[in-house]
């Protein structure tokens, strides 16, 4: 059986095709203001990547904030459900899934089959993790990709407290004025974001094993801060940003059985 998962996220649309246990295609497009168009493009790209036509797909399922407007299917699964399902498929021993995107963070406690037992989503004023690192990287005049790695060079913990991303930026400015090395600032920023995410994860409990999915998982500084803060190893699946789409493809397969 071949199924497709489409993740219509706030920033990117991701498409994944799954045949048995083989991923046939992975594509993504910037969502912009016309996510449906972006989804069509990503979907077409996925078809051409594996040389299939839409008729070859047995079922399609959507997830993400825009899941209800997906042009290809009415079937959908929430981000919470998809993240859990996708992660458990890849790493069956995981019980806590942390999913961090640009503006929202989620923690999911799940059972063996990927069934969601409890979940938490960050409340207001929680300073969107993705957006936050972007703006700080800009304030420090460091490319985003390097900003994460930079923090691994620091050994020093500087507490930051601002709840708000913009005020945190002023704290960073104060650190800059105090001639704090960039790597220490980078670590302070990652620690601050990780601390907020960990706060939320603690609501559902840190149950081994723990996985981090979503685009932020590519940031080694954040992963490091998360591991230090929770005092536990964090599994990052290959292609962490596609785990939601994978979960949707798996849901499609389950439902059409």
């Amino acid at each position, binding site marked *: 059986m071949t199924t497709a998962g489409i993740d219509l996220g706030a920033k990117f649309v991701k498409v994944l095709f799954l045949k048995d246990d083989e991923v046939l295609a992975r594509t993504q497009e910037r969502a912009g203001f016309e996510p449906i168009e972006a989804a069509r493009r990503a979907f077409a790209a996925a078809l051409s990547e594996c040389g299939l036509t839409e008729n070859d797909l047995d079922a399609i399922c959507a997830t993400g904030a825009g899941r209800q407007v997906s042009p290809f299917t009415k079937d959908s699964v929430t981000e919470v459900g998809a993240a859990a399902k996708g992660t458990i498929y890849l790493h069956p021993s995981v019980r806590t899934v942390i999913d961090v995107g640009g503006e929202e963070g989620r923690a999911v406690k799940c059972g063996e089959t990927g069934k969601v037992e409890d979940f938490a989503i960050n*409340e207001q*004023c929680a300073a969107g993790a993705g957006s936050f690192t972007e703006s700080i990287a800009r304030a420090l005049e460091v490319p985003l990709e390097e900003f994460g790695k930079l923090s691994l060079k620091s050994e020093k913990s500087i*507490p*930051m*407290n*601002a*709840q708000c991303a913009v*005020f945190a930026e*002023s*704290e960073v*400015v*104060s650190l800059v*004025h105090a001639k704090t090395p960039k790597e220490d600032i980078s670590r302070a920023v990652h620690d*601050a974001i990780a*601390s*907020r995410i*960990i*706060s*939320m994860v*603690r*609501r559902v*409990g840190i149950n081994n094993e723990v996985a981090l999915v979503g685009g932020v998982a590519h940031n080694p500084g954040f992963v490091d801060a998360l591991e230090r*803060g929770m005092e536990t190893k964090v599994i990052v699946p290959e292609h962490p940003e596609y785990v939601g789409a994978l979960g949707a493809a798996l849901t499609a397969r389950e439902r059409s059985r």
Partner: protein
Amino acid sequence: MFSKFYEWYEKRHDYARDWLSKNDGEVVGCFCSYAPEELIYAAGCLPMRVLGSHEPQDVTEPHIFGMFCPFCRDVLAQGLKGRYDYMKGIMIAQSCIHLRQSFTSWRNHVPVDYSFYLYMPNKVQTEHARSYYAGELVKFRDSLQKWRGREITDDALRETAELYNENRRLMHEVYDLRKQPNPPISGREAMVMVASSFFVDKKDHNAELKRILPELKSRTPDRECGARLMIVGSENDDTEFIKMVESVGATVVVDDHCTGSRYFWNSTQFNGDIMQDIANRYIDRPPCPTKDWERRDRFPHVLKLAQEFNVDGVITIQQKFCDPHEGDMVPLKEYLNSNDFPTLFLEFDVTVPLGPMRIRVEAFLEIVGEEELF
């Protein structure tokens, strides 16, 4: 000169552990300055108020909802992280809703042998509060006696109340020196002195106060006084903040905080029934806003301090989300301003970002300061 107080303040856990090794008693955590410490002390225990750690933390989210104040969160975090693992007992004298959360969550999740919720009245302005509170204190005494397996005699209570009164009198003496044109003691030193009295055996604290007082009286300050400031508001043991304020041309000369003057301002009057005497002392003390209704008795008290200590301006601070103080801030500002005291309002968190605070303080000093710029 204040090194002992700093040491106690910074190494409070070491002090407590050391105390435990030398005494046949337990450490009892107190959750509010209304805790009637005399009873705990007379039971052979060391009362120790849980004050701020000023460390960011991520462990209280499952227990306390985000709109509750950072101080109550900071308190609970220390318990959850095991910072007070030597503390066998905890108690709260009923205070604000936020601190009750810390207490009940601590009781639920941090192992203790003994806990007591004392139903201290909120309406201290009714005469009925006196006998009621004395009655509740009897229950607390009974409960402590049962836990410790020893009697708390009236004589022991009287002796303790005298020891506490002495501590209050000595700290008053230090505060009096702050009325001088250039006080021999900084606001930061005063804060550390009072804060440490929350953890240290009053006998030790009194001895140290007696040791430094003569020296202090003849101390020549090595700094200019600058603007004389008063600081008023919710729980505050943020010495870093005071340090910053005193580094930009000002001296904090008096305060109205539960972690400051409010803690020791009045003393126990002995009228025969020691339990009633102790109860009265807490009913009559300068009130927390939580207990300051229907009249606002705190305001004239604050004004009197501002006048007696001849302050140039008042910084009103408040822990973020602290409802009792938020309910007082607007009328307090009006009241002080109408009595010609300028005010600056600041909001506190577990750690205070010094950069943004500094500009507010400096701008305030430019307002209250002399007019050299014009």
